Each structure stands twice: as C-alpha cells, then as structure tokens.
C-alpha cells in the first residue's frame, strides 16, 4: 500500500502541473484584465501596473516565474526586504551566513487587495473554509447515510417515503434559499442562534446544517439505491438463512458492501466543500475562501485565481487518494495495482 500511495503522490504532482498550465493560459485568454474598470485608467497608469506585476512579459515567461516562486526555495542574505512582494509561506532562519533566511512558496500578490497577498488568504481564510467544509460533510454523512439505510432496509414503508421525501426536499431546495430561511427562523424569529459569524460553537450550527442538509440528500438517495442493490445479492440470502437477525444482516453485511458508491461521492464532496462554498459563506458572513473563487474570476485577479484553483486541485487529488485507500478497506477484493 505504501507503494500505491507514493505512486499516487507522484501522479498528483503531474496532475497539478497540468492544472496550473491549463488554468494559466485559459485565464489569460479571457477578455478584460485586472485593471479594467468602468472608470478607465489612464494609459500610463496601466503601463506602470503591468510593469510592476510583470504582466507585459510573454505568457510563457510569466508562467515560469509563477512556478519558480512556488517551487524553488530562495536564500536571502543581508538586509532583507519586508515588503508584501517578498512574502513567503515558509521562512526558516539559517544559522550560517549574514542574516540568512531560507524562504519558500510565494503564491503571489492579489491585484485587487493590495495589502493581502495570496499567502495571507491561505493562512487566514483557508482553515476556516476547511473547518466549515469538513463539518458540513460530517453533518451530511450523519444525516444522510442513516436516512438512506433506513429507507433502503424498510423499503416501501413509511420510513422509506418519509426519508426520501426529506431527501427530495434537500436536493430541490438550493442552499441559497435554505440558508436565509434557517437564518430567519432560528436567528430572527426564535432568536435561538446567532445570525452570522464564525468562531463560537453556537455560530457554527446553522451554517454547517445548511450546508450539510443539501449534501445529505444526495448521500441518502445514493445509500438507499446502493443498499437495495446489495440486498438482492446471494450472500445476503445466505446470511439470512444462517439465522442472523435482520439488524445484523443490514448493519454488518449490507452496509459495508453498499458503501463504495457513497465513499466515491464523499471524497470529491469533501474536497469541494473544504475549498470553500461561496453562498453559505456570504450569507452567514464566514471569512472563508469561497468568495475568492468568484471575485477573483470576475476581477481577473490572476494570482488569486491560480491559487484558489491549485488549492481545489490539491484537495481533490488528495481526496481521491484517500477514497482509493478506503475502497481497499471496505472491499478486500480490491487490490492496489
């Protein structure tokens, strides 16, 4: 299994390189630039800005500079600049040399938020989004999977109809309606929970529930469908004929075997949610990374676009690796080839 993981990590590097290449050239192909505004800037100002951010270099050179800033560590000695342009994620003081530091990983500045380079976005906003996302998926799994199991095990009974009814509700009512509704009911009318913010456990309840409920519907339906399929398998009939209780049959034998499609979906779901959800974060005023995905594209903020896409890609690839490992645990027949 170690071999498998190492091989997948190497693939990840290759995938990420491809992602950065494609994203970089795609984003420069879109008309408009970071300095397009309704009130046009004078030519000379735009020229100066382009020079400062190296936007007048040929695209290939810009791409290589970007990758160099991320991948290649730099040793700085002597009097060092403390400006935001030289802001790195990893700074290690070296014992040798004249005030030497090793610096590594600079994702670039933000053209729109000048005092906030992309590194700051990762340091401050990403952990919050990751928290929200992880909790959201947890809520989705805790609500969705049991609901699906119940609906599948007790097919065509009240449990099934109720469970699937709730699932259809969750899938049809988008988060952008569910979230304000929850805000009004629990925050304004009943006043039980705070309306916005993030940090205290009380503030975390509504956003994670709003996020989790929409996703739980997907998991519930998937679990139910998968369970129904497994219930017809021969080995389940064998288990029943051995005299096992229905509960044991369902919870021990059926459940584990029906988890493969569910795990397949949870992996990417976790990655997407951890990278930031725009709607929930805006409505509940959570300082996460979601808004940067949207505002960077409309504002043509190239380093932020690259940074956010890279984060999403890394999460997705990692999630897929974990899902593959979990497959082998669920179904021992799957070998790591």
């Amino acid at each position, binding site marked *: 299994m170690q071999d498998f993981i190492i091989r997948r990590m190497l693939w990840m590097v290759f995938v990420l390189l491809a992602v950065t290449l494609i994203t970089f050239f795609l984003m420069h192909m879109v*008309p408009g630039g970071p300095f*397009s505004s309704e*009130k046009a800037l004078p030519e000379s100002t735009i020229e100066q800005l382009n020079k400062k951010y190296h936007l007048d270099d040929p695209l290939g050179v810009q791409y290589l500079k970007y990758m160099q800033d991320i991948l290649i560590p730099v040793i700085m000695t002597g009097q060092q600049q403390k400006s935001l342009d030289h802001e790195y994620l990893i700074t290690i003081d070296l014992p040798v040399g004249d005030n030497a530091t090793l610096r590594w990983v600079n994702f670039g500045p933000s053209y729109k938020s000048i005092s906030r380079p992309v590194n700051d976005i990762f340091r401050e906003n990403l952990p919050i989004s990751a928290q929200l996302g992880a909790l959201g998926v947890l809520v989705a799994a805790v609500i969705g999977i049991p609901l699906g199991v119940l609906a599948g095990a007790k097919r065509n009974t009240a449990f099934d109809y109720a469970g699937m009814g709730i699932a259809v509700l969750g899938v049809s009512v988008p988060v952008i309606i569910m979230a304000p509704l929850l*805000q*009004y009911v629990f925050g304004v009318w009943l006043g039980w929970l705070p*309306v*916005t913010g993030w940090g205290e456990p009380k503030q975390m309840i509504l956003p994670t529930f709003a996020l989790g409920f929409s996703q739980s519907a997907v998991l519930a339906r998937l679990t139910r469908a998968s369970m129904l399929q497994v219930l017809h398998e021969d080995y389940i009939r064998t288990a029943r004929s051995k005299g096992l209780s229905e509960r044991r049959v369902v919870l021990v034998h059926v459940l584990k075997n029906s988890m493969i499609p569910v795990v397949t979906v949870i992996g990417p779901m976790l990655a997407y949610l951890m990278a930031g959800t725009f709607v929930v974060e805006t409505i509940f*005023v959570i300082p996460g990374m979601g808004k940067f995905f949207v505002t960077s594209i409309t504002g043509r903020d190239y380093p932020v676009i690259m940074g956010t896409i890279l984060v999403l890609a890394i999460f997705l690839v990692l999630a897929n690796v974990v899902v593959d490992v979990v497959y082998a645990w669920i179904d021992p027949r799957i070998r790591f080839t």
Partner: protein
Amino acid sequence: MIRFMDNPVQLREYEAGNMDAIFVPISELDRIRADSTLNAELSIVPGLCSQAWGFNTQKAPFDNVHIRRAFSYAVDRQSLVDYVTKGGEIPARWYTPPSISMAPTLEDNPDLGIEYDPDIAQQELALGLEELGLDSADDLPSITVVFGNTETLSLTAQALQVMWEETLDVRVELSGLDTTTYWSTLEEDAGQIFRAGWCPDYNDANNYLRDVMRSDSIYNYGRWQSDEFDQLVDEARLLSDPDKRRALYAEAEQLMVVEEAGTMPLYWPITAMLTKPYVSRTYSTTGFEAYWKWDITE
C-alpha cells in the same frame, strides 16, 4: 463596531436586533415600507451618482442627433423607477445629480432637462430618418445595447427595449456581457448604446460635466463632441461666482442632454437606510458618515 456584510444579510441581523444601523437592499424596500415598525425607521437619502446610458456617436445611426433625441425622449423614466428599479430613485432630467454642488436643482430649474414625450420622440425619429435618407424605422441599421450583466442593468435594458419598441417601433438587440469584459470594451469599442453611469470623484459639477463629458475626456466613451459645450464647461471651471457657475452648468446640461442628446440620463440612485430608534445619528450627503457624531440614547 463596524461590520462588513452583504446587504440582505445586514437586514436579517438588523431584524434580529444585532445591528443598529444598516444599508437596505433595494429589493427589500417594498416589504420594509409595508411593515409599520420598519417603515418608521427607514430613511431615504439622495445619492451622488447618476445612472445614464450613452450613445456611441461614431456608430450609425447614433451619429445623427435626431435619432439620439428620439431614443432619449422615448424613455419613460418615471415608469422605469416605479416599476423596474422600484427603489424610490429620482427620474433624471439631466446628467449631474442635484445633490452635487453647483449642479442645477429641481426647485430652481423646473423646466430644465429632458422628460418622456412620445410625440417629440416620434417627430425626431421622422426627422432623423429623413436626414439619413431612410423610409422607415425598419431601414435603420441593427442596434445593439451593450451592458454588464447584473440584475438591475439587465432589467433596465429590457425595459428600454420595450419602451423603444412601443414608441418608436424599433426593436434593439440586447447584449449583456460579463461585467469585466464589458468594461474592457468601453474605451476602444463602446456599443451603439452602452451603460455609462458615473459617481463623483469630488463634490462639484465640474467632475460630471467637464472631466467626463468634455470632447477630449477618456471617460467620454461615446465620443460626443461639441465646441459650445466645451466652452461652457471650460468657462465654468475658472469662475468663482457660484451663481454664474450654476447658470453655466444648467446651460451645459440643457445642451448636452436635450438639444444634442450626447448622453441619456435615466435616474439618480438613492441610499436607503434603517436606523434603530435609540441611535441618534447624522446623515451624510457625501457618502462618508461622520460616525464620531453618533450616539446611543435611551
């Protein structure tokens, strides 16, 4: 404490009692006015910006002044504000909002500026067609209205499309672009009709009239030229007597908006705010609130 959040979310926090003074999203104004408690706490303040749509005078048929005037007269600005934007905005008769210093005001100049008049619109269209040597409105080249794709602008563009079809029998095409893409087209290649609002850099009509609409301004995306207008605004810029300046700017507005239809102002936006009754506050006319003068009273 100052918090930054989207307008609809501000309203929910206000209703929950967690915020004391907020800006109100225009879409919620109907509901707020209907609620007696909230209505008492609502205040509407005229803004400083101008919502206008421009004509590209370098593209046919808007190189012809009569066609421009026809289109401008055919817009029912009061209906636009009442039924489309619904925010209590003020229908604009000229370009510079009256809240800007030195701009003409509605009280002093009740007859200044442009107003909806379908008869004049149709007359001007006929004159324009005659000058261009065309028989009917169907012979006009195809006209595209270009704008950045936000909800308000999209609704406004559709309303304009309907108005022009009803009054002038001309059907324009709408082209809603991604906002940043739209902005990047403005300088070089503005559409035949394009959205060209303005918010002030400083509180003087000079900003609106000379900085933006003078023939050589880079913000004059429609490239409307008028020596007489340039002279008026140049002169007004150098004078110090406020009455003389106001008179000159009023004349300039009449020339630009009515006689030449160099731009087509639609309305002057407002700012709607809700304030809890226990807050004693000032209302800024410049957009910068003097927070240090506010207080909580019992």
